[in-house]
């Protein structure tokens, strides 16, 4: 290698699997590299074509597709592709296309084969990229450097930049300039120790100060954001990401109790996690029409698979998928409002069921509702809200969130009502419980306001939290319903399968696995008066009381996680294999490891159901 090409060697040396190679080997690789440039939109590899190179992205971005044309992966700077074909018969198995202008380094097959045979680290890397990575993922331990399991504190690179909240506008701007930060924390120094009271960002200075031509002596407290959204130093990077996207903010203070640890910016996360669900979510907000959203929705399964590969747990995956679903809904609502004009009265768009619980997966229908302002006049306003609901519901269906078969959607007039009517609904469900009616309204007890006046949903949550815990009849009825679906305990002796047609030799991991758990945990959470929606968070709330024995809570959490993750992997494998993902598992698909642990998990669920029956006097088959 010409010594002058050290720049290229150094780039390789920064990226796996080249990062562990000795310099001499890298020099040899560089000497044989060929370089090609691909303009955005051009094909790099076509299916079936001969190929004798390993591709390394020096700059730009490339998408890899399946035979079916479905997106398989997105590759960016420092990543490789083309290895599958080299390992098979030098024929392209996964076509590739440049989605940005891309400079590609091509490593000849001869070198690839040499590395493959002589460098174990390289071989592992390339192999793990293959499906085996997915299959072995279940038993692998979470690694601390995985994007899904890294904590926000890893992104904090400096001490927080703070100023008293009494400073003037110009002084604040000067501090930000001197310190080179795009956000300044403002502290209330009146108490014993300074307390975080607000934040001001570059964008705020532009929109709130410059645009309004405010004098430089304006107190910063006049324009700072004081209803602060923060995150805890123990939270995961992905959680921080969702918080920012959820609230459309770009800076997030990280707290240790009352003390500020630092501030992280959305751009820090983008840098940290170049191929995350973030790419997808931030793109959702850039789409200008339903067609664009539909196109983007094709990537959701891919994001899902990637999270599974990265060893995310079910809580992370469920939250990320729910976050993506929310983002689609929110963007559709924005587009709907653009199309139909601003809403005549305030309203809140509410997610129900798995999205509200942050437990969404890839196979999911839409469950939503609208809570309208109490000034709602059907004759005057309903035409607008029906049109908006229809726009969103149709858009979601386009994006793969199928219509709800039970018609629990805002397009149904019954679920498009003013707040007072919603309060009546809930009061009626709780105070005059009827088993049949409750079975259908179960889903409304997992609710989350995702757009507009979310405080309407909060009012409903308060109502539920206050009244549900006091209605023994309601809890008993709910408990009884929660016992309708039992785990397939006999599964491991004589297979107990779903009886209907096509899936005759399978059992449903949702209906007989995760759903019974979230159902029974909902009952305990409502009894405790908890406002939590997510099953894990509800479990935490339950754990703080003596509703169920302490180890019962831990066991339930583990059981739920295990069943959920088996279900998730089952779906990821189906996507990987190009099949339609579902919840139906064939026993022979499970590893001995999964079988034995599923058996334990189902036993835990069964015990918990027995306890639920006892605790709330819920007799199956008759009303109490």
């Amino acid at each position, binding site marked *: 290698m010409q010594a*002058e090409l050290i720049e290229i060697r150094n780039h390789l040396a920064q990226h796996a699997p080249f990062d562990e190679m000795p310099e001499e080997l890298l020099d040899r690789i560089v*000497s044989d590299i060929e*370089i090609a*440039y691909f303009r955005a939109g051009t094909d790099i590899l076509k299916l079936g074509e001969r190929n004798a190179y390993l591709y390394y992205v020096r*700059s730009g971005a490339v998408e890899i597709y399946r035979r079916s044309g479905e997106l398989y992966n997105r590759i960016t700077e420092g990543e490789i592709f083309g290895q599958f074909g080299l390992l098979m018969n030098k024929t392209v198995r996964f076509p590739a296309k440049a989605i940005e*202008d891309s*400079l590609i380094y091509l490593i000849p097959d001869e070198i690839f084969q040499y590395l493959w045979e002589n460098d174990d680290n390289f071989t592992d890397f390339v192999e793990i990229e293959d499906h085996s990575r997915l299959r072995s993922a279940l038993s692998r331990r979470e690694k601390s450097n995985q994007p899904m399991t890294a904590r926000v504190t890893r992104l904090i690179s400096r001490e927080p930049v703070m100023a008293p909240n009494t400073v003037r506008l110009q002084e604040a701007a000067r501090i930000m300039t001197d310190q080179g930060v795009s956000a300044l924390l403002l502290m209330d120094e009146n108490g014993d120790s300074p307390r975080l009271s607000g934040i001001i960002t570059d964008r705020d200075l532009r929109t709130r100060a410059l645009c309004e031509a405010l004098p430089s002596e304006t107190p910063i407290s006049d324009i700072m954001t004081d209803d602060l959204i923060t995150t805890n130093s123990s939270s995961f990077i992905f959680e921080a990401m969702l918080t920012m996207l959820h609230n459309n903010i770009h800076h997030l203070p990280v707290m240790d109790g009352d003390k500020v640890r630092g501030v992280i910016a959305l751009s820090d996360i983008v840098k940290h996690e170049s191929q995350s669900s973030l790419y997808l979510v931030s793109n959702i907000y850039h789409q200008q029409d339903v067609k664009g959203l539909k196109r983007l929705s094709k990537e959701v399964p891919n994001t899902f698979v990637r999270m599974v590969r990265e060893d995310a747990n079910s809580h992370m995956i469920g939250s990320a998928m729910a976050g993506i679903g929310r983002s689609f809904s929110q963007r559709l609502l924005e587009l709907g409002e653009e199309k139909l004009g601003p809403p005549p009265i305030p309203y809140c768009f509410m997610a129900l069921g798995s999205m509200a619980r942050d437990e969404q997966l890839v196979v999911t229908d839409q469950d939503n509702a609208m809570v309208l302002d109490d000034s709602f006049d059907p004759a005057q306003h309903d035409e607008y809200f029906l049109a908006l609901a229809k726009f969103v519901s149709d858009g979601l269906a386009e994006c793969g969130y199928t219509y709800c078969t039970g018609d629990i959607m805002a397009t149904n007039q019954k679920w498009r009502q003013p707040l007072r009517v919603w309060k009546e609904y809930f009061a009626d469900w709780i105070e005059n419980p009827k088993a049949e009616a409750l079975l259908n309204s179960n889903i409304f007890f997992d609710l989350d306001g995702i757009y507009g006046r979310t405080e309407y949903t909060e009012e409903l949550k308060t109502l539920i939290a206050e009244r549900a815990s006091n209605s023994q009849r309601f809890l008993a009825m709910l408990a009884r319903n929660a016992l309708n679906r039992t785990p397939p305990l006999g599964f491991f002796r004589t297979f107990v399968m779903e009886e209907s047609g096509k899936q005759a030799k399978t059992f449903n991991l949702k209906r007989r696995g995760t759903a019974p758990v979230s159902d029974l945990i909902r009952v305990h959470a409502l009894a405790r008066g908890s406002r939590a929606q997510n099953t894990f968070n509800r479990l935490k709330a339950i754990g703080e009381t003596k509703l169920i024995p302490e180890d019962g809570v831990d066991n339930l959490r583990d059981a739920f996680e295990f069943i959920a993750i088996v279900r998730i992997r089952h779906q990821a494998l189906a996507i990987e294999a190009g099949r339609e993902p579902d919840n139906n598992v064939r026993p022979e698909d499970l590893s001995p490891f999964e079988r034995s642990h599923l058996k334990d998990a189902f036993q835990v669920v069964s015990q918990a159901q027995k306890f639920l029956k006892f605790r709330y006097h819920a007799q199956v088959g008759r009303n109490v």
Partner: protein
Amino acid sequence: MSDEQEHAGSEALTETLSWPERYRELAEKAKDPRLKAFYEAGCVAPETPVKDVPFVAVDFETTGLDPDKHSIVSIGVVPFTLGRVQLGGSRHWLVKPQLPLHQTSITIHGITHTDIGKAPDLEEVLDEVLESLAGRIPVVHYRSIERPFLNMALKWRIGEEICFPVMDTMAIEAHLHPNRKLTWWQKLKGQQPVSIRLGDSRLRYGLPHYPPHNALVDALASAELLMAQIQHHFSPETPIRDLWL
């Protein structure tokens, strides 16, 4: 020598003779065997589509900008076609300048007296340099350096001149951005003029930043830039005569 002067001579000739014809003629006239071999390797026909043209990106680091007063310090060459750069074929030579190194140029290209002390005279590597250019169309970023400097170096050493067509990636950028002078109003608004420097031009095509002022890396940088320019603004079928200068 100004750009226009450097250029005028060759243009007058191209009107009468095409480049391949001139190469044949010059091959006969050339006395130095190395120069003769260079011309004998020939030049592609003017109607050849750019996609079929063998190129070689060339970059010199020099002690200054004036070929009459300054000398070549290093040479980098990277053979390529529009489809592929072959890094294996790239070469880099340090050569001893005839005139002392200027302090300012040291700070630009980082080549010091110590490096130069051991370097050969260009004469000693001339066969290799000409060989690397033979049969290929040189690609440079800013044509007023490589051609006139090489011409001057040969004149001094072998008493003969050299001429060849070049592709100038800077001229292409200049052509794409004709209005680089800002109006007073644009200046008032603090607008920056479009830069056609190598590094800045590359950014417009999504090409990565390479550290500048090393002859080989700069040659590679202009090879990649030409690939990108053709893909964005021209057809691979464009005849080479439309682009060479």
